[in-house]
Structure formats: structure tokens, C-alpha cells
């Protein structure tokens, strides 16, 4: 496929790996914020190809992994309402809340819960089922949220009265800031998410370089993209530089996608949000703006669910912040496996625990 195959030529990889080895002197910890990067790194074995001086740490970068139990419970309670069709991205089906998972509710209680690929599919279900109420589980970072915003906008223009969303959307920059404010992490640089940045641009990351004096590179998703980004970060660190650079230039600009962000900011507004295992991060969530409140499923169905405490001994919170590696959790690979996940990092295919289990677990 064009724009994928050319970036998969292995001769490039060897060249950059040699380059990284030749310039890396200091011991550094780099965090890849995005779960899609985590999977690519494990799949391609990049960790093993790097010099001992470079340690890669996986961050919180998967919207599924950071959805708190109370939000899963809300989804289940909404799905239980009369005449509701509940729609969701597939990954959210198996995330455990205190009431169980959507998947189990569907099987046990026969609830009408449907997996959709796009929020547009949920909208279509609403149009085709005017006698039902269709709710969509609105999860995602800035990559996904504009697509949901465009869908809500469409529903607003069409005055659709039977379409609702349960917004649990989150934004990446406040989370990076929270990580930088965790000094025990000792991070020296960031591999910033590629597709989130397509939307938000690179300028929003300036605080990482200016306030915290750390380099940041926005990376594409092919192994050579990630290697080149690591090279760019190490070069900056060795030259005592700290700036925001874009490796994924074929898709990311400094300003980002202004049109999409405009639609997102029209439909949603910032609010504080609870990140599973991490806690509340100020202004890191999104709620529907006043004009679109009529689409809020929580308000429409009058759902009131307090925050619930996670009683399992899941270590996702530490793993999402890079304080622990999956094998340090005593449930890893034993009580907790992709077939039988205890925590969200094992549910999501992009969770650190799942990636570690699938690609690295065996050799460690």
C-alpha cells in the first residue's frame, strides 16, 4: 500500500539503528505516549535493537485503558434502559467496570449492544430505528473526538431526537503535563502520538520544550518512523537541545487540522476527567457544549453513578504512567491474560500489558 510499503524497507532501519548506537552516550528514558506506537515497538522488536543507554517506557496512550470503572458502569446502565440500542467501538466491550463488562451484559441480559466502526454507523442506526433510542459510547483522544463531534453536529442539523452519546473523551496534552509533573518518572524525552497530532498539530506541545526543557518528536507508525524519531530525540539530548520536532511530516503540521478542531471545540468543551488508575487530571476531559446538551445520554436518562474504587490488585495506574512494567504486576500472565483480562491495559489490543503479553512476554 502506498505510504506504507516505502516506509517498511529494512535497509533504512539498519542505517538508523547504527546511527543511534553511534551518537547515544547518556542513559535516557524516553516515553512513547501512544498505544499504537507501543504495539509497533513490541511487534518490531525495537527495544532489543537499541543500545543499553536507551530505555523506552510505554505511556497512557490508549483511550480504552484510561476509561474508569464508573464510566463503564454508566454505559451498562444506559444499555439497560428501555428501548435503547447501545453502540460502541469494539475495544470497549471487554473493559471491566464494577457491574461487569458490556460484552457480558449483552450475553447474560440480552441487551441490544452493537459494535460500530464509526460514529456515523451509530447515527445510521438511529435514523433506521426511529422507535428506539440509540446511544453511542463516545471514547477517544483528539484523533477520534472530531469524528464524533462531526456526527453530533450532523444529528443536530437533522434535528435527530433519538441519538445520544456518553462522552468520556480525553485530551493528550494535559496528560503529558501530568506525567512531567511526576518527577519520579525521570523522563528525558517524548515520542508524541502521530494521529492525535494530525489533529492538534505540533505547536501545542511547546510547553514540553519551553517549560520542562525536554525534547519531543511526533512520530509516524512504521518501525523506521519510530527509529528516526528516537534518533532525533537522542540527537537533541546529546546536543543539550530541547525542541518540538515532527518526524511524521507527511501527515502532521505545526497548526494541525484547524477545521476538525473547530468542529470539536464547537461541540465539546473541556472539563476535568478521571483517568483510570491515574486519577483526576484538570481540563483533560471533554463534555458536550451547552448547545448540544440534548445529546448527552447521562442527562437524558438521568444516570447518576458515583466514582467506584477498583478493588482488584491491577497495577494499570503505575503501568500507564511508566512507573512499572507489566511483568511487575503479580496478576500478569496468570490471573490476567488477554482471554481473561482483569484490567483495561490487558483488554485493549494497544494496552501495554496486552502488547507485552503478545510480543515480549514469551522471551522474558
Amino acid at each position: 500500500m502506498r505510504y506504507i510499503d516505502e516506509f517498511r524497507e529494512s535497509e533504512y532501519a539498519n542505517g538508523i539503528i547504527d546511527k543511534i548506537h553511534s551518537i547515544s552516550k547518556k542513559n535516557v528514558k524516553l516515553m512513547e505516549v501512544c498505544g499504537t506506537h507501543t504495539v509497533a515497538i513490541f511487534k518490531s522488536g525495537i527495544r532489543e535493537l537499541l543500545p543499553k543507554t536507551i530505555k523506552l517506557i510505554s505511556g497512557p496512550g490508549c483511550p480504552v485503558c484510561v476509561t474508569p470503572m464508573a464510566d463503564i458502569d454508566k454505559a451498562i446502565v444506559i444499555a439497560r434502559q428501555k428501548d435503547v440500542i447501545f453502540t460502541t467501538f469494539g475495544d470497549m466491550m471487554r473493559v471491566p467496570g464494577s457491574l461487569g463488562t458490556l460484552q457480558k451484559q449483552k450475553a447474560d441480559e440480552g441487551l441490544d449492544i452493537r459494535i460500530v466502526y464509526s460514529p456515523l454507523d451509530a447515527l445510521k442506526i438511529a435514523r433506521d430505528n426511529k422507535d428506539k433510542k440509540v446511544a453511542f459510547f463516545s471514547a477517544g483522544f483528539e484523533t477520534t473526538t472530531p469524528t464524533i463531534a462531526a456526527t453530533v453536529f450532523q444529528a443536530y442539523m437533522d434535528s435527530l431526537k433519538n441519538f445520544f452519546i456518553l462522552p468520556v473523551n480525553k485530551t493528550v496534552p494535559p496528560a503529558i503535563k501530568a506525567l512531567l509533573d511526576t518527577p519520579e518518572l525521570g523522563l528525558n524525552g517524548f515520542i508524541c502520538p502521530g494521529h492525535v497530532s494530525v489533529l492538534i498539530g505540533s505547536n501545542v506541545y511547546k510547553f514540553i520544550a519551553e517549560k520542562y526543557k525536554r525534547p519531543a518528536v511526533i512520530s509516524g507508525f512504521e518501525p523506521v518512523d519510530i527509529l528516526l524519531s528516537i534518533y532525533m530525540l537522542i540527537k537533541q539530548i546529546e546536543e543539550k537541545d530541547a525542541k518540538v520536532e515532527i518526524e511524521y511530516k507527511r501527515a502532521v503540521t505545526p497548526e494541525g487540522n484547524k477545521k476538525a478542531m473547530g468542529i470539536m471545540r464547537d461541540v465539546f468543551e473541556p472539563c476535568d476527567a478521571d483517568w483510570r488508575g491515574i486519577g483526576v487530571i484538570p481540563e483533560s476531559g471533554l463534555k458536550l457544549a451547552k448547545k448540544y446538551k440534548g445529546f448527552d445520554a447521562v442527562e437524558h436518562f438521568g444516570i447518576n453513578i458515583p466514582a467506584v474504587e477498583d478493588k482488584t490488585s491491577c497495577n494499570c495506574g503505575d503501568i500507564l504512567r511508566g512507573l512499572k512494567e507489566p511483568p511487575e504486576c503479580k496478576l500478569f500472565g496468570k490471573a490476567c491474560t488477554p482471554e481473561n483480562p482483569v484490567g483495561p491495559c490487558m483488554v485493549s489490543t494497544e494496552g501495554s500489558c496486552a502488547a507485552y503479553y503478545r510480543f515480549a512476554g514469551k522471551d522474558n
Partner: protein
Amino acid sequence: MCLGIPAKVIKIDDHLATVEIGGARKEIGLHLVDNISVGDYVIIHAGYAINKINEKEAEETLSLLRRLGDEVYR
């Protein structure tokens, strides 16, 4: 969850487009992007195009990769 796939725009019909992804065809929304023409490559996420791929920049990244490799093996 933030997977995006490059796809070629085959047909445009107002706010909807038909794209080709590795031989398969799909209908997607163009609501989040401007100035898209038939033949452009876009990145698809959750049923929408989220941007246009910049061909010139793609070439430049590839030539940077080549150059770095050459520096090593020279």
C-alpha cells in the same frame, strides 16, 4: 484506537467520498477536511478522512532516511 490508514480518493460526492484501501473500497466522510480532490491520499480514522497526506514531505522523509543510511555505510 488511534489507528489511521492511508487511502486513495476515487470519487467525491459532496461531503462523502469513496476511497480505496489496499484494493477494497469504502465510503467515508469528508466533513473534517478541506480541498480534497480525486487522486489525493488521505488518512482514514473511524469513517472520516482526518487529513490529506503531503506527498512532498513523504518523499523528503524517505530521502532523509536514505541519507542517514548512506552516512553510516560510506
